[in-house]
């Protein structure tokens, strides 16, 4: 491909910027395809799907294998899933080309700006995605991807407190809210999410700060100190295992995701235990963290058409429902509301509030990208907390 003048300017400009900062730019040094966001065009309409295999990049156990098997059967291809553990690891691996995949299955909205600016995602061609019509209206034009050029939402979830309703009175949890995580009555049986954004945001919310993207050093430091207090006061555990630790009775109180209490009630209760033992609390004024994962096609996808077809497949109402029954994470698809899901016996009645309503979604606080220095401060604060 001949280098256009525009490409040349943008390329040399960026190289100069990077070199000026002192290091060898890892992206430019090793990326064989010197793409930047401006160069990328969506694929043409009406192309035949490739032969595969379609390569997905996702968290482990985050998509129903039955759903994947159906897609394989429908298009006569095989699907391979490459896994990552945390979002930042996914960015690193995509950025330096150490994984080669077609679909980024679960990108976090707060890192999309980096993936897009880094030329890692390609714009979608809506003609392959008719099932987008099934999405909730609130995701037509999301804040993180204006015009839905690059992404389609996969799941939506909120961060609250999962607890053992047979051991802790729901009225007490409702009354205390986030403060209950600082109540030594539950010492040794409490956990918070192992995620620096989630953990610090929770401490901010408890202190009455609703700016969960704050760059105010004093607020961040206070949140860090509050978290540190948990170490001795509560003998706090920091993990993302609430989905099984609550049903199994190891943890009584867990700062966790709405999807995890649903999957916990659905799949991890010991035989014969009633799902009503699991409770869910979310701020009564619906001012809490709401997040979602996004599907996107990578810029260097070898199977871009198949990738589009896969994304469209997951937006099919019946398929989205089947996927939900396996992982407990709500797809933002019309019709999958609490009434429907309870009637279908996917969600126990006592966890109705773990199914996000329009009001929860619209009032939800979102994790936005942080400026580099702020991000580093958040990370340092978290590192100080986990050091005990």
């Amino acid at each position: 491909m001949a280098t256009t003048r525009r490409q040349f300017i943008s390329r040399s400009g960026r190289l100069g910027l990077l070199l000026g900062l002192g290091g060898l730019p890892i992206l430019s040094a090793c990326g064989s395809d010197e793409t930047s966001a401006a160069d990328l065009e969506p694929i043409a309409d009406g192309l035949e799907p490739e032969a595969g295999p379609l390569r997905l990049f996702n968290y482990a156990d985050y998509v129903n294998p039955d759903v994947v098997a159906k897609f394989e059967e429908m298009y006569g291809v095989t699907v391979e899933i490459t896994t990552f553990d945390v979002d930042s690891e996914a960015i690193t691996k995509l950025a330096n080309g150490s994984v080669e995949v077609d679909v980024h299955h679960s990108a976090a909205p707060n890192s999309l700006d980096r993936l897009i600016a880094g030329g890692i995602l390609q714009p979608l061609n809506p003609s392959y995605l008719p099932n987008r019509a099934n999405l909730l209206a609130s995701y037509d034009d999301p804040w993180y991807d204006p015009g839905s050029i690059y992404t389609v939402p996969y799941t939506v979830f909120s961060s609250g407190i999962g607890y053992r309703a047979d051991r802790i009175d729901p009225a007490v949890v409702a009354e205390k809210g986030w403060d209950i995580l600082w109540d030594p009555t539950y010492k040794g049986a409490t956990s918070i999410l192992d995620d620096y954004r989630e953990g610090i945001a929770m401490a901010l919310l408890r202190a009455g700060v609703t700016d969960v993207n704050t760059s105010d050093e004093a607020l961040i430091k206070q949140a860090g100190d509050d978290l540190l207090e948990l170490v001795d006061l509560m003998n706090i555990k920091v993990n993302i295992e609430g989905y099984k630790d609550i049903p199994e009775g190891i943890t009584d109180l867990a700062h966790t995701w709405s999807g995890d209490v649903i999957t916990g009630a659905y799949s991890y209760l010991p035989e014969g235990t009633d799902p009503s033992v699991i409770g869910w609390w979310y701020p009564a004024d619906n001012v809490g963290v709401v997040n979602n994962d996004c599907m996107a096609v990578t810029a260097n996808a070898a199977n871009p058409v198949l990738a589009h077809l896969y994304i469209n497949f997951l937006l099919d109402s019946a398929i989205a429902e089947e996927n939900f029954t396996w992982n407990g994470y709500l797809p933002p698809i019309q019709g999958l509301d609490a009434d429907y899901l309870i009637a279908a016996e996917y969600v126990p009645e006592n966890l109705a509030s773990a199914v996000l309503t329009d009001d929860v979604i619209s009032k939800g606080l979102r994790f936005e990208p942080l400026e580099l220095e702020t991000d580093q401060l958040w990370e340092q604060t978290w590192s100080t907390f986990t050091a005990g």
Partner: protein
Amino acid sequence: MSVGGYRPGRRLGPLMVITWLYVLWSLLPVLIAVRISFNSGKSRSSFQSTSMRWYWEDPASVWRDQALQTALSNTLKLAVLTMVLAVPIGVAMAIGLQRWRGRASRAANNLMLLPLVTPEIVIGVALFLVFTQIYSSIPRGFTTQLLGHVTFTLSYVVVIVRGRLLSIGGQFEEAARDLGATRMQALRLVLLPQLGPAIFASFMVVFATSVDDFVISSFLSTGASSETVPIKIYASARAAATPAVNAVATVMLVVTLAIVAVGGLAIWAYRRNQGATLGSAAAATGIGG
């Protein structure tokens, strides 16, 4: 204390008790992990009832999930090839370092020890950087994982073999040379047989380290085609894991046992054939007693 009693015997001494208690202790969790693989539920800790669900019924089971099978074969291939490369290079290096004198030897000796003081995650990150930026012509994935595993197991072999070399001392080999054996003969007929247990220990440690490693493998993995069982286990321990990972670990255990049993039989048969030859060679060089 019975430590000084010097006849091997069947007497039930404290040492024997400690050893068997240890064996029990070390095997118990393995048995638990195997039992969980037969759980009919999705939980890895609360056992519901016995079933083969995670072996072949469930879509996520070992039999039906292609990815688990790929991981299994990758893990075993990696471990075997790592042994084949790391043990000979390491044994040669141990013998070489033992004889090689001077400043260069000291430098090589210190260099050999460095990977031991380096946490796996560091080797993982460092190798990842050089494979993406310097040795970028090496195909990433399985090949780089193999190179990584050999690098970080090599020093184990050297340390184990040197421990043995130091306690053997040079006198047997010197005796053999004095009696007219060539350097190679002395090495092959005298030294290597005496290194047997250390070489055996090296094979085991290298195999185990390779099978256990997930840090280096995951840094150097390029996707589904180069994932290993530990990567699968680690990933699923963070997410909603099923007993399918226990099932794949169990299959790995059984396959390994089968390979070891076959290998053990082969060595046993070889020893029976070679016993006479080795014995006479040793007698001929005067070190039989």
